């Protein structure tokens, strides 16, 4: 049985570059020197391990995890679900997935958000869960609203949910955003369009999943996530120290 070796090199052409002038904030926050490429050492192959003591089952339910007793968040009730896989198509079990989003009106519960849409008193806007043994995860939430942001004076973010995923090694650490099928704002968003590859953009768009809806209750969207995969060490390449 081959052992797992280092991570496959990250395909940087699939990710946004650091400097993307149409997303103005990136201009002063993007390194100018090239990145120094490292082969994986133990520092990159390992990463934090989380367990059921770290999260509560209610944490994944954003309709109720901040709501007053007997009340619930306002908005279109949705399930967001899918699998976390690696590039070898193997499930990533027991890994931490965290989500955050605006409420149905497009307003964040954050002291720095001053958009005029109202705060929903029953909606915190964050959730977290561990994938199961098959890499499967799900959240229940409300569909977030689009919101305006200061880039040009008329930029609007498409409805999106921010996602943070760990994997098994610190080199897999990823934050991304999930969009919703059919939203005309996706093509107009300077943050989405920091990604140069249209196929890569499509991979951030959740698809309506009628088979996973709960009839007369909650509609569902499917969103699979792919983390970096690891080489098989068919021949020893001296990963572990001398």
């Amino acid at each position, binding site marked *: 049985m081959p052992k797992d070796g280092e991570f496959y090199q990250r395909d940087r052409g699939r*990710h946004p570059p650091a400097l993307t002038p149409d997303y103005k904030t990136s201009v002063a926050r*993007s390194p100018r020197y090239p990145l120094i490429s490292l082969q994986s050492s133990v520092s990159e192959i390992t990463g934090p391990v989380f367990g059921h003591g770290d999260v509560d089952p209610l944490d994944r339910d954003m309709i109720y995890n901040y709501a007053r007793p007997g009340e619930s968040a306002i908005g279109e009730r949705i399930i967001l679900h899918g699998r976390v896989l690696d590039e*070898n198509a193997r499930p990533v079990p027991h890994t931490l997935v965290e989500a955050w989003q605006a409420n149905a009106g497009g307003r964040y519960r954050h002291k720095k958000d001053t958009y005029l849409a109202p705060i929903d008193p029953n909606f915190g806007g964050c959730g977290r869960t561990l994938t199961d043994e098959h890499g499967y995860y799900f959240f229940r939430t409300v569909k977030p609203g689009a919101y305006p942001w200061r880039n040009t004076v008329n930029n609007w973010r498409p409805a999106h949910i921010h996602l*943070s995923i760990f994997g098994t090694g*610190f080199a897999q650490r990823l*934050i991304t955003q999930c969009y919703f099928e059919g939203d005309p704002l996706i093509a107009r968003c300077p943050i989405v369009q920091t990604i140069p590859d249209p196929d890569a953009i499509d991979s951030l768009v959740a698809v309506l999943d009628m088979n996973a809806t709960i009839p007369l209750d909650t509609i569902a969207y499917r969103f699979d996530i792919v983390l970096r995969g690891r080489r098989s060490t068919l021949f020893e390449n001296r990963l572990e120290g001398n």
Partner: protein
Amino acid sequence: MAQKLDYLRETPSQTAGPYVHIGLAPGAAGFSIYAQELGHDIAGPNARGERIRIEGVVIDGTGSPVKDVLIEAWQANADGYYAHPEGGGPVEEGFRGWGRVICDFETGEWGFDTVKPGPTPGRNIGPQAPHISLWIVSRGINIGLNTRLYFEDESAANAADPVLNLIEWERRRATLLARRSERDGQGVYRFDIRLQGDDETVFFDV
């Protein structure tokens, strides 16, 4: 036509945005929701080794502090073991070696308490000097930035470190060295991160 490879392709990154705290550190966003937030205690109560504090600020290309940055830290314990099945050996009860660090929204200053890590195995030649891996996200950062913090008072180990020695421009290696001082008898290391400019911090494609 040849056969097709069936590898999947990594999900692309998107910026963490200005409200990253809601998801990863809701207390900093201004509300309490979880029984416990993750990443506040890196070393835990039982970790051996020297207790240290690390402080710094992230500075953008205009010389201004980045006031909405979030940093994650990943490190070995004093024995050089990571809290992971492939981490090399056992760690103390309660040692996770991972932390989440939020900066002050007014000044951009951040800091965290931990233990000084030990040397860890290198890939090929010799051990890696004690270091802490850092991952930096914020609004305007399209894909998280990976860097490493080394300790200036480990000069012999640093001189032999395989990663520092990979940096062709020797002047730039100094951007990864945290500067030591003492405060109330405790070692405090200063590590400012510069996103651009002559002293741009070295970032890695890991």
